[in-house]
């Protein structure tokens, strides 16, 4: 009787120590879910979701405070990816956040720029180059198209222009839906085949 109690007690202490050690040794820093959500978001840092950046939004989603359909730059792709990740149903983009637009990049009309540095302070990814009373310019390759620099500009010299379609960003179009999936009466709109097949 006593030996059994002692043995079980000893085992209990042993496992307790083991678990305690494991909790310290394999401690997970931060919430891994936040990382995963953050990896899905487009990192525009535009704040259209109502949070100051992509990571705060990811944290809000992980806490269950924010819905998954508040990211206009990510659009449908991101909503579906988030729905997949979190096991929820995808839903259409929340209209109060904005609408899905083609990818844009900011452009400063340099002859109008007065060098006030307000846009530099607004840019979330430090993609604007300039100094006080010096002309500013956008580093195009770093610009996420968040539009945060447009509002602060006192002389309205920043314009958002759509990214030019180049050969390196060109994509093969998806083949047109097969005839049996098309509505019956639009034969005349049969698209031109893209390839030789």
């Amino acid at each position, binding site marked *: 009787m006593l030996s059994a109690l002692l043995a079980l007690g000893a085992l209990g202490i042993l496992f307790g120590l083991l678990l305690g050690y494991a909790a310290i040794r394999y401690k997970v820093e931060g919430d891994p879910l936040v990382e995963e959500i*953050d990896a899905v*978001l*487009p*990192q*525009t*840092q535009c704040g259209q979701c109502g949070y100051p*950046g*992509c990571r705060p939004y990811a944290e809000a989603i992980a806490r269950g405070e924010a819905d998954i359909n508040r990211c206009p730059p990510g659009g449908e792709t991101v909503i579906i990816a988030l729905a997949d990740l979190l096991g929820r149903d995808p839903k259409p983009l929340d209209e109060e956040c904005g609408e899905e637009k083609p990818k844009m990049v900011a452009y400063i009309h340099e002859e109008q720029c007065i060098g006030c540095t307000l846009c530099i302070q607004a840019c*979330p*990814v*430090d*993609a604007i180059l300039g100094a006080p009373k010096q002309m500013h310019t956008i580093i195009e390759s*770093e610009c*996420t198209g968040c539009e945060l620099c447009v509002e602060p500009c006192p002389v309205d010299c920043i314009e958002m222009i759509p990214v030019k*379609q*180049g*050969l390196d*960003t*060109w*994509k*093969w*179009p*998806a*083949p*047109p839906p*097969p*005839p*049996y999936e098309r509505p019956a009466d639009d034969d005349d709109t*049969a*698209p031109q*085949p*893209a*390839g*030789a*097949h």
Partner: protein
Amino acid sequence: MHRLFQFKGGVVLKEHKKDSTALPVQPAKLPPTLTLPLKQHIGVAAEPVVAVGDEVLKGQLIARAGDTLSAPLHAPSSGAVIAIADQPIPHPSGLSAPCIVIETDGEERWRPRQRSVFNFAELSAQELREIIRDAGIVGLGGAGFPAAVKLDPRGHEVELLILNGAECEPYITCDEMLLREHALEVLAGLLMMRHALNAQRCIIAVENNKPKAFRALHEEIQNTGANVELVEVPTIYPTGSEKQLIQVLTGKEVPTGGLPIDIGMVCHNVGTAYAVYRAVEFDEPLISRYVTVAGSVAHARNLKVLFGTPLGNLIEECGGNRRTLRRVIVGGPMMGTAMHSDTVPVVKTTNCVLVESVMHDVPLPSRDEYAMPCIRCGNCAHACPVNLLPQQLYWYARARDFDKIQDYNLFDCIECGCCDYVCPSQIPLVGYYRYAKSEIWNQDAEKRQADLARERHQFREFRLEREKKERAERHKKKRSAVSKAGGDDKKAAIEAAMARVRAKKAEQDSAPKNTDNLTPAQQRQVDEADRRRREENPATSPRDNKAENTQDRPQ
């Protein structure tokens, strides 16, 4: 007799090669303008070294190779550069890219050609590669990989050099005609390539539907006694694909994501060998190639075409009607792509111009319009020469499940079109694979962009935080310095500072300024003014005035 192997799958196609091999090759007419895209190869675009208005000679360098993987570009004919601008290029997108446009003068004046190599074996492999690189030679089989890079073994032992004369796609006959007419030159080019690679063995592979080309090569090998094996391979599409040809000749498979050099083999096209020969022997850069013009034209044939010639000119020259075109396909019926316009130019990788008129007089499949649901017959899997599961790939592509589709090795697909061809439901399968591939590339690019943005945003936050901290620190330091002084000490400190300021001011005010090198007349004037001032206001010199003021100021 060479032992041959077989790859799994493949299809036997109707060849349609008789028409375009009936007439001998002739040079195409010189067009009034030549449009030369700066990027006609895999890698980065070439950089122009001429300016608008420059006169150029035939064969003159007009764009040098870019920094990394690239190839230079030469003027195909003499004339003047009239533009360096975006022009439509032969690409399925129909987009434009930077091009050099040359207005030809019809004189075909060559630049001076200096090199005269009597024996290429005297050159080192590196020298040979440099000649090939400077001549702008790229793989002429279709991919356009810079040949000099592919001729560099880079530490690998090259066991086998294969010269690919299989040319398995229907309609295309440019390699066949080249072998028939220039077998000796191709052979010489092969020996040069072998020298550059230090390859142990050489095989020339020709499909058994080209007996004339085979005989021509056989004769030249007999005559010259070159140590080269000539192998006739069965006509099964896609034997002409690099990896499939290696499998047929050696029974070895190139590993997934690997290159032939990984298993000690290098494969080049016969056209590339010919270009190498012309470059080494005649100092002639790559400025023209054989192009098959076939399909709905009166005289299907092969032409020797200068790069930059518009496709439409070739079609007209072969008796086609540009007004009744339905599609112009660059490449063959299996792997070619339809162009948006017939004004795009011939480039280094253009092997065939396949014309389809609105009369449908050429049996070319155009399948999208007739696609039916998949009946899961499995024919596509039987036909696939790379052992993929085309049906699975199709489902995942349609569902946009781009993770899963990569698990099924989408990127091993060579887009040969066999699955497409055998599909009884006429589903445009390769269209789906191309779509999926470009979507995945694009997503990867976007991911890289997002990672960069995240990194920059995090750094910015860190920077702002750091600046805030530094500012707070500075304030604290200042405040503590002032408060440490405290009470009477503080007053004294201010007093001392005032005194310092006063002393400085006094020194500045009392010393007359601009009084060096004065003429006697000026000196008199200054003295006069001084005297007057003292008389008018004897009590307050400016210095005393200031001092009193500061004392009056409330503290």
